[in-house]
């Protein structure tokens, strides 16, 4: 395991300290927690937004704390959802009395821990709503199972719900627009290499020298298919087709596109992917309103990427365009 760390057990706390030291103009850490909040939290007259999950997805989620996006982010151990008490600390730190929206990715652990925190908060009289992001079309959506996973599309939920909250909207309105994003965003990822959880000390799975995994989850959960190495164009085609199939866009729909790197895929390759993605969308007469290329929701040092498409309407466009000022996302 080749990592720039000190002690596998301390990576989350040291990361949070280094993060707050780097961005004191944006964020502070709630004492004795693994909670990052806006430096001016709780913001009066504003619904608070709390997201979070296991660490290892940086800049998610702390990187999106700031004006126009999140009020608080809770960091669990690497790839392990945070505990209810930590989420509860975040809720308390960001609630200005207008209520708090929890943005949860659809993993059993995340859902249960955030739900328990919501119960704790409600029992103390804090209004809490929650939305569950499940954008990953690599997994079948079914009511009999856990359903689809939440991946990079979550960042667009942060952005748009954050803009809505910043406008002074009510908890119900913020929840509603967050759900609208969730209904209109789809993603799918793939991986070329595995990643290593520091305290595990070895890769979470293995992929042959000439293989890639299509549909890979952001914790290294296996995907749909193990294939030989394909070209960037072929990969883009597989991922985007599956996303579009599920999204069912009409011609001349407007969309936002996110090409997200999983940790060790160079920007160069993400732009090569975007080259094909943008060509395909143009070919289908879909208008690309905005494109995001970079690392937003990573899997430690996994090589690979995901593609997300969000169908826009006028309301979503206005909120997407609104100011955001966070360590990892500025508009």
């Amino acid at each position, binding site marked *: 395991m080749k990592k720039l760390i000190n002690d596998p057990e301390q990576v989350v706390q040291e990361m949070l300290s280094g993060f707050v030291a780097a961005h004191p103009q944006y964020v502070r850490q709630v004492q004795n927690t693994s909670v990052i909040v806006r430096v001016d939290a709780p913001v009066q007259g504003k619904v608070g937004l709390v997201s979070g999950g*296991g660490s290892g997805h940086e800049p998610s989620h702390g990187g999106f704390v700031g004006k126009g996006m999140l009020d608080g982010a809770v960091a*669990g*151990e*690497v*790839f*392990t*959802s*945070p*505990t*209810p*008490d*930590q989420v509860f600390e975040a809720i308390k730190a960001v609630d200005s009395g207008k209520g708090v929206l929890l943005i949860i990715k659809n*993993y*059993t*652990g995340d859902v*249960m*821990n955030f739900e*328990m925190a919501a119960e704790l908060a409600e029992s103390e009289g804090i209004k809490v709503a929650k939305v569950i992001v499940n954008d990953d079309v*690599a*997994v*079948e959506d079914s009511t*009999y*199972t*856990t359903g689809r*996973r939440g991946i990079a599309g979550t960042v667009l939920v942060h952005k748009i719900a954050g803009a809505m909250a910043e406008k002074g909207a009510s908890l119900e309105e913020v929840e509603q627009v967050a759900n609208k994003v969730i209904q209109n965003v789809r993603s799918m990822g793939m991986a070329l290499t595995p990643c290593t*959880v520091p*305290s*595990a000390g070895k890769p*979470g*799975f293995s992929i042959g020298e000439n293989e890639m995994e299509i549909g890979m*989850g952001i*914790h*290294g*959960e*296996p995907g749909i298919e193990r294939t030989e190495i394909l070209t960037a164009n072929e990969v883009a085609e597989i991922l985007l087709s599956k996303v579009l199939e599920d999204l069912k866009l009409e011609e001349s729909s407007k969309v936002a596109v996110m090409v997200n790197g999983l940790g060790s895929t160079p920007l160069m390759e993400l732009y090569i992917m975007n080259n094909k993605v943008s060509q395909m969308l143009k070919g289908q007469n879909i208008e690309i309103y905005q494109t995001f290329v970079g690392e937003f929701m990573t899997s430690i040092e996994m090589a690979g990427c995901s593609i997300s498409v969000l169908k826009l309407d006028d309301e979503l466009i206005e909120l997407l365009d609104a100011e955001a000022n966070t360590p990892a996302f500025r508009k």
Partner: protein
Amino acid sequence: MEVGIVEVKLWLQKLNRKLQQEKEHLTDLDQAIGDGDHGLNMARGFKEVSIKIENTDYETIGALLKDTGMTLLTKVGGASGPLYGTAFLKAATSIGDKSSVTLTDLSEALEAALEGIKARGKANLLDKTMIDVWEPVILYMKENRESIDWDEVIRLSNEKMEATKELEARKGRAAYLGKRSIGHIDPGAASSNYFFVELADVLKGVIKE
């Protein structure tokens, strides 16, 4: 026979030792069909439990189990944290301020724990989760109350854990794998097996006395 605070503590300490020993094994199981942290999660949580209960004098079993549950809830995270945490909290409430319990009390407490797990996780038998060990073992205990054969508990628990291998996961992270989850033991079923095996092991001793 009655089970006291000493025995419950002994059980939890033995369970902790087992989980520390089997950390890598549980993590390997979770790497196959999950995200490879179940061993780390359980080991982290029970290490904290062990420290906590070692340094505290308890007057009631309820208080001991409540501390255990709260520690797991606040130190584990993931899916297993709320599930095991809830289980111990429900058991604590069921037992309340007794300082020793009968096997009937214990069996009822475990039933309450299982109800807690099911309410929290919304999974059912054969979804390939820890429930596939819990439910049959607790059914056996319930049906046999004062005449529990602890060796049978161990056998049953092991068998049910092994049986998760053939199931297709419908809940938890392994569900994303669909049919590809078949052929692997569920990591939560494996940790639950240690839970019951260590319990049986301690209670076998008590009964002999």
